[in-house]
């Protein structure tokens, strides 16, 4: 095995461990963990046996394995961006609900204080 392969496999393994045994692990959905595992396995295979990636690329009509990898990366990145955008919107909505509650409570307190 060449040095880069050893390094990459170690990095992928550590990253996967980080996802699976993080303190917030129970909050990550099970299917997301499975996808992460599959992805890590795919990454390790791609690093150790680049010719498999080449074969796969030819199978779907792409010239080189590296090109296929780039396309897959694009898909992964775009879905990440979209996912993150939706999550931010969701978080924003939660914050707005909280802030609205504060605003309404404050208005209520003020009205009560004025009545007294």
């Amino acid at each position, binding site marked *: 095995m060449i040095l880069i392969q050893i390094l990459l496999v170690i990095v992928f393994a550590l990253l996967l461990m980080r996802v699976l045994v993080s303190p917030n692990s129970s909050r990550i959905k099970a299917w997301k963990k499975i996808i992460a595992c599959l992805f890590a396995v795919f990454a390790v295979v791609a690093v150790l046996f680049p010719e498999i990636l080449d074969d796969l690329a030819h199978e779907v009509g792409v010239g080189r394995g590296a090109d296929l990898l780039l396309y897959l990366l694009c898909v992964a990145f775009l879905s990440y961006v979209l996912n993150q955008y*939706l999550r931010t919107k969701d978080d924003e909505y939660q914050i707005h609900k909280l*802030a*609205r509650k*504060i*605003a*309404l409570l*404050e208005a*209520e307190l*003020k009205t009560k204080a004025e009545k007294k």
Partner: protein
Amino acid sequence: MNVMSTSNVAIIIPVYNEGKVIASVVKNVLKQFDFVVCVNDGSKDNSESEIAKTKARLVNHPVNMGQGAALQTGIEYALQFPQIEYFVTFDADGQHSLADAQKMLQYLQKNKVDVVLGSRFLGTAKNMSKLKKVILKLAVRFSNATSGIKLTDTHNGLRVFNRKFAEIINITQSDMSHASEIIQRIAETKTPFKELPVTITYTDYTVAKSHNPNLNAVNIVFDTLLRKLVK
């Protein structure tokens, strides 16, 4: 205009950096309506103290959250008062006319609809720029193609609705996309509605204020399509 009781009407005004005009707009509204809620959406200017000068009720957002969020806050505030039966959303910059609001209220009270929407394209828009007109017309086409109900003006801030619709409106889109969301809500709940002509007056002030309508339109289209996609 015949006089009628307005104690069951809440006027909801979202306010963001309107310190220059808000006091005069609110005072004008208070001449005809008692229950006026100003939702100060984290303004950076003196809007808050200007509103405090008037007899309007003030609800303060701790941070800026957008016009849609401010409307929802105003609606939820007014819903707390059981005597309120009718809700009017009104822009803070004075571009709407009170006579139109009265006319829409009367229509709502006399007809079997839950929502009355103002339309500047059925009525008149004074001093509207050509570019704004084109963008708004495109917005109408886009909305009519995606929402399932046909309207002539989809981004009009003057709306009147009853308690039933106020309870289900639940605006979640904080920014300008809330206009499409309200239409979406009308369509999906099959709420009976009516569009009435209104007059919108674009003063130098309102024109100077509205920034980047084009970019805004892109945001609205993007968010509306995304919302459809995710549902």
